[in-house]
């Protein structure tokens, strides 16, 4: 059986399961946990130009079938990442995708250029969708023109595939997806977290130190699946779907809806082996259904 999938710009994954940004450290930390050759790839925690402390605690709150987070892109900055994290990441026997976020198109491009010059990884994911970054972040992902411009600025300097990660916190995600495709994106990834909030009624205080945060986990899956389906139906580039994927059944749903690959995020917190187990489950499904190439699943939805 052929488990490989293409996610744009010539990047072929061993199988369609990636570990989502911000839910798996910088990748290499978890080498003892399972064999990385068993998954399709890892996406690093988002890197910014300069080191960031992140938001004040509390940073997480459980909500029905999911969680809110307001981590706020804690990371060692571009130089710190290249010096301390990238060497171990480079050694991983799987696709290595570096997630970056900037405060301007120029900064995005500067980071992409520096990383590509250094090498040692396979693709860039542009995080234009973090709800936890006050300066920039999600703003880029909320407007068609800025989403297009930032994509183009990065594509002009990057010699590796560029996947743009979209926010669901917009009126029309399809318009943004079309804009980044015009900007030259090799693929799109969606969804980042949904803006959310929780309040402690005894103290009348917000539970998160940052007041609002991003919702993820099984609670967001139906929303993420519908958006993945809409975007995949509208764009001509590969789509990486995510949002509440905990197992192979969830993953296969996203592929049937049109995703070429998927990412497992929050589920890893509950089950550190959720990623590799999802791969095994997809293999079982394909065998049972006598599917010879997993890529056949993509967009195979039988609409009424």
């Amino acid at each position, binding site marked *: 059986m052929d488990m490989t999938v293409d996610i744009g710009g010539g990047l072929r994954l061993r199988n369609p399961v990636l570990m989502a940004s911000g839910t798996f450290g910088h990748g290499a930390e978890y080498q003892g946990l399972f064999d990385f050759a068993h998954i399709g790839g890892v996406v690093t925690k988002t890197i910014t130009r300069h080191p960031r*402390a992140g938001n004040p605690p509390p940073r*997480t709150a459980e909500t029905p079938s999911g969680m809110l987070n307001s981590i706020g892109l804690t990371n060692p900055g571009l130089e710190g990442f290249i010096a301390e994290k990238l060497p171990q990441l480079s050694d991983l026997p799987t696709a290595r995708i570096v997630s970056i976020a900037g405060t301007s198109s120029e900064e995005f491009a500067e980071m992409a250029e520096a990383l590509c010059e250094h090498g040692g990884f396979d693709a860039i994911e542009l995080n234009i969708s973090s709800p936890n970054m006050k300066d920039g972040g999600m703003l880029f992902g909320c407007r068609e023109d800025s989403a297009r411009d930032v994509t183009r600025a990065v594509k002009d300097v990057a010699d590796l595939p560029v996947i743009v990660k979209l926010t669901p916190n917009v009126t029309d995600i399809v318009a943004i997806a079309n804009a980044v495709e015009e900007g030259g994106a090799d693929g799109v990834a969606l969804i980042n977290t949904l803006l959310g909030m929780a309040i402690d009624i005894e103290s009348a205080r917000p539970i998160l130190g940052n007041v609002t945060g991003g919702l993820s986990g099984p609670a967001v899956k139906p929303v993420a699946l519908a958006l993945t389906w809409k975007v995949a139906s509208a764009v001509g580039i590969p789509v990486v779907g995510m949002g509440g994927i905990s197992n192979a059944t969830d993953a296969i749903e996203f592929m049937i809806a049109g995703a070429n690959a998927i990412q497992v995020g929050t589920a890893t917190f509950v089950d550190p082996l959720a990623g590799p187990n999802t791969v095994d489950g997809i293999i079982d499904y394909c065998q049972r259904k006598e599917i010879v190439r997993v890529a056949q699943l993509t967009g195979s939805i039988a609409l009424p």
Partner: protein
Amino acid sequence: MRLDARPIAQSAGPAQFVQILADPVGSPYLRRPFSFLRVDRDAGWFEIYYDVIGPGTRRLQEARPGDAFNALGPLGRVFDPPEGHLLLVAGGVGIVPLAFLAWDHPERRLSTTLLMGANTATRLPDLDALLPADLVRHVSTDDGTTGHAGFVTDLIEQHATPTTAVLTCGPHAMMARVAQITAELSLSCYASLENHMACGFGACVGCVVEYRESDREDERYRRVCLDGPVVDAHGIVW
């Protein structure tokens, strides 16, 4: 509550914790962290002790003998007590990791003193069941229904020697007060933190505590589940 889990029991050390999935079908969704109370490495079991406060601990309370739970651990760093006299200052279920330290270091018990505080006598756990019999203990209650009348932190000065090291675990306000008093007395002080956790193994960066000093911006907040749960009480922002 006692759970059979040989690999966890065999490698568990003081201050470490275990993340338990209270409900296999995901309600509540995230795991719940609990400190080890006692382990038997030969028999392959560990014990936890908890207050029932919400859906996760309620699910655990409903468990029947023979029920299986998914447990991930041991997590966090082992705390190796420094030489000399140890003063353990506990509030509420914060007594659990301190009791484990005493169980795990029988040779240290003669040089260890435990101080335990509660609002009122009926809120005190059964100390004889939780602690080794030969561990010296002193109790305080806010309302004076048993032991010293007032805060447990009032007892620190009289039980400390100039070389005492303090380890505390309990409500945030109590630990902050312990940190302040030990700073005034120039005693070293460690706190076993219980920040809210999503993963428990360093992946979410959610459980952080702020450090007073850090070389770099991204190290200002550090993960309690990975760098702790025991931290230098004088090194963090309370």
